[in-house]
């Protein structure tokens, strides 16, 4: 990240999340996001009612921040960035992130500059070609 001038990377479920954490999760309209800062612990942002199921997959002791159905997941993402000292500069977005996720994050953290995370992920050896879709929630 430092080489590419990124102060954090924001990932949706997919090959990069799986490669880096072993977590597979189905993409749904409910945002499930991993924030990886250049310095400090990663933070997970996920739906409150999925916490039990998510904890079956995420290692214990991880920083997990839940959002309830009428709350914004992007406020949690912005807070996580802030907590890791990411207040300005460039944030790498998952190229496969959906526009609504990016749009939600940029509205909550409008001072950051969002660029593609792909080059940084590739040079870190992340295999972006692995299929990594988990089961999609039905509720």
């Amino acid at each position, binding site marked *: 990240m430092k080489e590419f001038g990124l102060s954090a990377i924001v990932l949706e479920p997919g090959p990069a999340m799986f490669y880096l954490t072993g977590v597979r999760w189905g993409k*749904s309209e409910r945002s499930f996001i991993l924030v990886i800062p250049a310095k400090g612990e990663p933070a997970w942002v996920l739906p409150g009612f999925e916490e039990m199921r998510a904890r*079956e997959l995420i290692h214990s002791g991880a920083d997990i921040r839940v959002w309830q*159905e009428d709350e914004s997941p992007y406020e949690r993402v912005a807070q996580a960035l802030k907590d890791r000292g990411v207040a300005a500069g460039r944030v790498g977005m998952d190229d496969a992130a959906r*526009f609504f*996720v990016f749009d939600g994050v940029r509205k909550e953290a409008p001072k950051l500059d969002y660029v*593609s995370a792909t080059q940084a992920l590739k040079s870190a050896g992340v295999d972006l070609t692995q299929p990594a879709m988990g089961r999609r*929630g039905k*509720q």
Partner: protein
Amino acid sequence: MNRRVFMAVAAAGAAKLADAQEVPEAIRKLRPMLDGVQPITDDERRARIEKARRLMRENKLDAIVLEPGSSMFYFTGTRGNAGDRVLAVVIPAKGELGWVVPMAQRKVGYEIRVATGAHVAKDDDDAFKLLARVLKDRGATRVGIEERVRFAVYDGIRKEAPSLEFVSADPVTAGCRVIKSPAEIALLQRANDITIEAYRAAFTTLREGMTNGELANNISAAFKALGTTGGAMAIFGKYTAFPHGSIAPQKLSEGDLVLIDDGVSVEGYQSDITRTVIFGKPTARQRQVWDLERQAQDAALRAANVGATCESVDAAARDVITKGGFGPGYKVPGLPHRTGHGIGLDGHEWTNLVRGNKTEIQPGMCFSDEPTIAIYGEFGVRLEDCMYITGSGAKMFTRQSPAIDQPFG
């Protein structure tokens, strides 16, 4: 036929028979239910595009950009799967639709019926240049990006056209999609009818010791026999408290609740139905919670009237559950999620029955009605039927489950 060929054919036949025998009879005797299905017409798609143009003007958008997905299919009838390559369509407020398709898929562009011609891109960088040019040709300055367009595609276009403003296209895409036409309601009805038939057959296959995976396979086999395809989620016993199940292995025993939550797609239109039923005899506690769940589902159905807010429907179901001694709010034991979601070409789409959503309910909207009661360590109950809104209130596509031991009405 020489002997070698005969042996190979005989072996293949035997293998086929073995497969067929693994499928229980109740499922094998199902027949396709797709007779008389009427796909959405091109005229209806053209009317959708005209409505989208009107919503663009109302929302001060000059164009919207879509990648393959349910919105592209909704407006154009094109599925247009291009793998990782960029395939996109620009729907402008004024002027012709602009397609940009990769070289390898250039036929896709010519097969589309609601526009003529397409720009063929040599590679993704070329696609971004072409999309930027299409947007400029149509005089766009403020552009709506469909919600599931990948960041990479947005990023590619903005680099080629940095002076444009890019915002969410939701007011246009969701604005059209939330209101279903009679043709759409008919397709949703068929998807619901098929799902109930599959569940009916699958519930006859319940037996002591079966795994939840086997039940899920039986449901999938039933969907296939009925002429369609669908995913399958089956949960047993205490894991029914997890709204989306658990990875823990599960075997069915006497007294377990069985929860199935699934759906199929007919011409792209989705169903989503949940049944929770007792295997064996229910305890008083199971029956009491199941009955409370049914009352909560009924309360949401009654509340979903034209002009009511979406959040008031959620509140109606949640109040029943809170008065029954659970919650409050999202607290478990109780209802940890919203009461329902919109449904159409996506199993979950705009708009939701959730606190904070002040959208007023209008005729033609379709929702799931599914207030779970989750009691971790014990069990969970979810009854889910989908409803469509008419001038005289909400109507269910399916008959609700009447009792804990009767999944079908």
